[in-house]
């Protein structure tokens, strides 16, 4: 029979195992990051950079597999029970790219792109590898997905368990209602399994596009511009699709909340219009001096992407953790 104590005991066991695995993984990831940085910094050793980037990508992929296991265990353990009826309302299908795991997924994607990039690989790989290192380091040291996983999820679920075990029917029911709403409209929502990964895919492609744009600006070679464009058009599709599927969900889930013109929505709109403007302006690239305008819009578009990401943590609102 499910009780708050039995759930807590099972969860403690899983969290201990995750932390043990995570300590090893953190060291492996940071070690791989140091190796990649060294090889990227020393031109004579760059011939081994692809292999080192592959090691980083594989290490991050192993970490992702561990997180998949962790989320499967959460699905098995974290049940919501209606305290009034005693009925189990369901489990949590927590997406793999929220809270402390966002940066981790992004790092994995950029590391995979850095490993797999072909066009202008000698120039692009060092830049992308350094970007992957920055993201992976941030994921390990700031996100802490193994040692301090899913802080918001556990804060709410622990409160629910505490209220359920408190003996107060009112308190337990209030906590259940809040947790059930989060489960249905956030953690288990189909949208959360589609929207974030599409955006992270586009972010990864835009990092590559930005790196190629910088190369174009510095070296003034049109082939870099073509590479930047190819990555941007690759990223624009999942960006558009990800944002389009967001609106119907927002209308339903945030009904009655002030979400229109909220910080994250604003900045996402800004990023999308900037990339739309970039792809539009590029149609006239062959006009005299137009490449400078296109390069400027490409740089501004990437700045908008970075601002969109950090807005989640800085500006409060419906789509924010600030």
């Amino acid at each position, binding site marked *: 029979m499910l009780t708050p104590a039995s759930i807590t005991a099972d969860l403690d066991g899983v969290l201990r195992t995750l932390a043990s695995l995570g300590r090893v993984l953190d060291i492996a990831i940071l070690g791989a990051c140091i190796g990649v940085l060294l090889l990227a910094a020393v031109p004579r050793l760059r011939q081994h950079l692809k292999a080192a980037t592959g090691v980083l990508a594989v290490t991050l992929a192993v970490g992702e597999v561990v997180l998949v296991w962790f989320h499967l265990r959460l699905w098995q353990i974290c049940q919501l029970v209606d305290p009034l009826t005693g009925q189990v309302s369901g489990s949590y299908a927590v997406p793999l790219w929220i809270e402390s795991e966002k940066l981790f997924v992004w790092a994995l994607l950029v590391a995979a792109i850095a490993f797999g990039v072909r066009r202008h690989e000698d120039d692009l790989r060092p830049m992308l590898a350094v970007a992957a290192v920055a993201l992976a380091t941030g994921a390990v040291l700031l996100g802490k997905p193994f040692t301090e996983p899913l802080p918001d999820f556990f804060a709410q679920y622990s409160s629910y368990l505490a209220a359920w075990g408190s003996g107060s029917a009112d308190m337990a029911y209030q906590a259940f209602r809040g947790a059930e709403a989060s489960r249905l409209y956030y953690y288990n929502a189909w949208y959360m399994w589609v929207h974030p990964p599409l955006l992270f895919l586009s972010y990864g492609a835009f990092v590559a596009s930005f790196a190629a744009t910088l190369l174009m600006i510095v070296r003034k070679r049109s082939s870099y511009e073509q590479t930047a464009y190819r990555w941007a058009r690759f990223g624009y*599709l999942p960006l558009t*699709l990800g944002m*389009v599927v967001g609106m119907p969900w927002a209308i339903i889930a945030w009904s009655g909340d002030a979400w229109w013109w909220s910080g994250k929505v604003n900045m996402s709109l800004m990023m999308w219009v900037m990339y739309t*403007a970039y792809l*539009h302006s590029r149609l006239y690239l062959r006009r005299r001096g137009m490449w400078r305008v296109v390069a400027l819009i490409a740089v501004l578009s990437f700045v908008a992407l970075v601002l969109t990401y950090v807005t989640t943590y800085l500006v*409060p609102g419906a789509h924010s953790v600030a």
Partner: protein
Amino acid sequence: MAEETRARASWDFSLMVATVGLLGALGLQSLLGTLYAWWAYRTVPGWEQTGYAGFIDVMNAIAAPVVIALIVVMGLCVPKRMFARKALMGVSAGMIAAGVTVGAVSGSLATGLAVYLALSALIQVAVVVLTLAGAGGLTYITEGRVAKAGSGMLHLGFIIFALVVVGMQDSSLMMPAFMLSGVLLTGGSAMSFYARGR
């Protein structure tokens, strides 16, 4: 003939500059709005309860003329595929006049815009159908039938999206129309950008 081609290229370029400029203005507004919200959250206690509704009104009021201009430019982009330059000016002016007339008679700017967008959507549907059928006489910057059809679908998706925002917020068809615009936008992006060689 050469002069006509040059004039059309210049017209296309002007529309592109206007589109990019308007998109940039919308982006700048988003940035400034976010900075203001960030400042307000930090300095005005309970701002979400007391000031957020006013903030949305101001943002809507600022965005409205930019969005209207974007819709008008988009409306001008659509018939340029089908009509010669002189006819294009006539058709564009006719569409604007129809929108303004309906808006003035009904007393509703949204209704006027909705009529203008509906006319644009009709023409764009014809453009997409003719492109897919391989009909000659349509002018595009892009090459290849798939890329051309994608470009047409992309514009149609934008128009339907604008139509949803402007005139279908309370309609039971809002969600299906929105999903249709989403399919056209993403499908059109895929066909338009991925079918090009470079």
